[in-house]
């Protein structure tokens, strides 16, 4: 006891990786890799310098944005994109609900769980562009390919988050509903749904937002929508029209953003 008073016992937060040699090897390895990676990045500064005035020209070609000369194409593109966004979000979420339920470990038996997790993994492993290229080859150019792409991508996103939200729910509330003798669907409706609903509404709106932005990208590889209009504008060197399209996209994304923030606050 008196010893402790003379020499206070030291305490330090234990390191995240316990083995010292492993800790140092990992740190050194990471530092070395970064050094080599930056060292071999080839930047031709002369070309960068030469490119500056060209870049300036390119940027200035965007001004002033021209909303007028391609207005009809722009409106068509926006309508197509909005159609794609809304339908793919609705269809994607509708499909992802059963998949997400099956992918929740506390709900589904093991075979169903692995099957549904498999679907989610496949859907999530490809970026929208790659899916869009694939579906454009499958269904031909046009918004239907874009719609299928976005629906498919929505399943992976929404299903995974739904499954994870269900796995995080409070089991005692669900247990109490089960104890009343409720059937499985009643149990879902009373014990599970109220717990996950607010977050899922928020995520649905977030996905709507993502799908609108992706609809512009998907169009560039042939999936229709505003992206197709944008791509055409670039191909024809009509940068002022392209600027108009970009501004409209920004405006719509911001509008969706504000509405979804408001709705999320309201459902909570």
């Amino acid at each position, binding site marked *: 006891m008196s010893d402790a008073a003379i020499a206070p016992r030291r305490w330090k937060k234990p390191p995240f990786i316990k083995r010292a040699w492993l800790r140092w090897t990992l740190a050194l390895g990471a530092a070395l890799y970064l050094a080599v990676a930056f060292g071999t990045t080839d930047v031709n500064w002369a070309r960068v310098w030469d490119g500056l005035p060209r870049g300036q020209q390119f940027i200035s070609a965007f001004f002033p944005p021209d909303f007028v000369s391609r207005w009809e194409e722009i409106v068509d593109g926006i309508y197509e994109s909005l159609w794609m966004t809304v339908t793919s979000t609705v269809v994607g979420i509708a499909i992802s609900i059963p998949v997400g339920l099956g992918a929740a470990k506390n709900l589904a038996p093991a075979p169903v769980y692995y099957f549904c997790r498999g679907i989610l993994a496949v859907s999530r492993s490809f970026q929208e562009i790659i899916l869009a290229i694939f579906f454009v080859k499958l269904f031909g150019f046009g918004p239907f390919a874009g719609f299928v792409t976005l629906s498919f991508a929505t399943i992976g996103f929404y299903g995974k988050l739904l499954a994870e939200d269900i796995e995080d729910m409070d089991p005692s*509330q669900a247990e109490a509903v089960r104890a*009343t*003798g*409720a059937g499985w669907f009643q149990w879902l409706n009373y014990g599970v749904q109220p*717990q996950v609903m607010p977050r899922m509404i928020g995520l649905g709106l977030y996905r709507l937002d993502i799908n609108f932005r992706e609809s512009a990208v998907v169009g560039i590889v042939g999936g229709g929508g505003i992206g197709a209009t944008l791509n055409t504008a670039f191909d024809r060197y009509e940068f002022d029209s392209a600027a108009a399209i970009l501004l409209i996209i920004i405006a719509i994304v911001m509008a969706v953003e504000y509405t979804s923030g408001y709705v999320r606050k309201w459902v909570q």
Partner: protein
Amino acid sequence: MLKLAGLTKRYPTGDLALKGIDLEVPDGQVMALIGPSGAGKSTLIRCVNRLVEPTSGTVFLNETELTALNQGQLRRARRRMGMIFQEYALVERLSVMENVLSGRLGYVSFWRSWFRKYAQSDIDEAFRLLERVGLDHMVDKRADELSGGQRQRVGICRALIQNPELLLVDEPTASLDPKTSRQIMRLIVELCKERGLAAIVNIHDVMLAQMFAQRIVGLQLGEIVYDGPPDGLTPEVLTSIYGEEDWEATIGKVEDEDEGAAEDSGDDDDDHHTPELDRDRLAGLT
């Protein structure tokens, strides 16, 4: 009458939670189940309605062998067993009324419950029960807006609207203050008396158990070590249940039915609803 015979539960982790429990609870008896944490109290009552599947042994509720039922039969049997939970286990985002009516889920079809179209008789009964516990003015409040004592009363209504033959009560007072704990226990005991219900009450608080239960069963490491009247709980018995400790202060006088010191404490559970205070207090006392 509830009858357990040789009830054993071994969890997948290998822990033997119940070691061949034999127990009979006649109709109308309120039985307190006491014992240290991990003694198997929660497991025992969950094995009765099979929220936890027993490993072996049988459970009879009157003539029904609960342990032999398939899923559909089990759901129908669960309707006859109301359960009251620790921490209330109300569905927090549902309203008080929806929580109470969820006790009818076993009786109504999926679509009726989905659209909240319950029979008028169910709704009448829900209002009657809420009135009985002094909460009929809060039907459309969300459950998470209520205080602890109010939530537990909603939990009691949810269990009773099932029209059960047996109440399974798991630590009803674990997160309540001393006064509310007594009100809740008194309410449970009175309702059991009114309806001639048998009840198993898991409870940590030995004094509360002595005050309100007709019979005490002490559980230790999955075995019954005491089964008898409340006044048979001597320091020796408590030591055999919980282990060595000074028990003299814990053993209450069984006749002590008035509120005592807890009455004067100002910490009523619904301070923020001052106008309803008297009514809420009545609910516990009448």
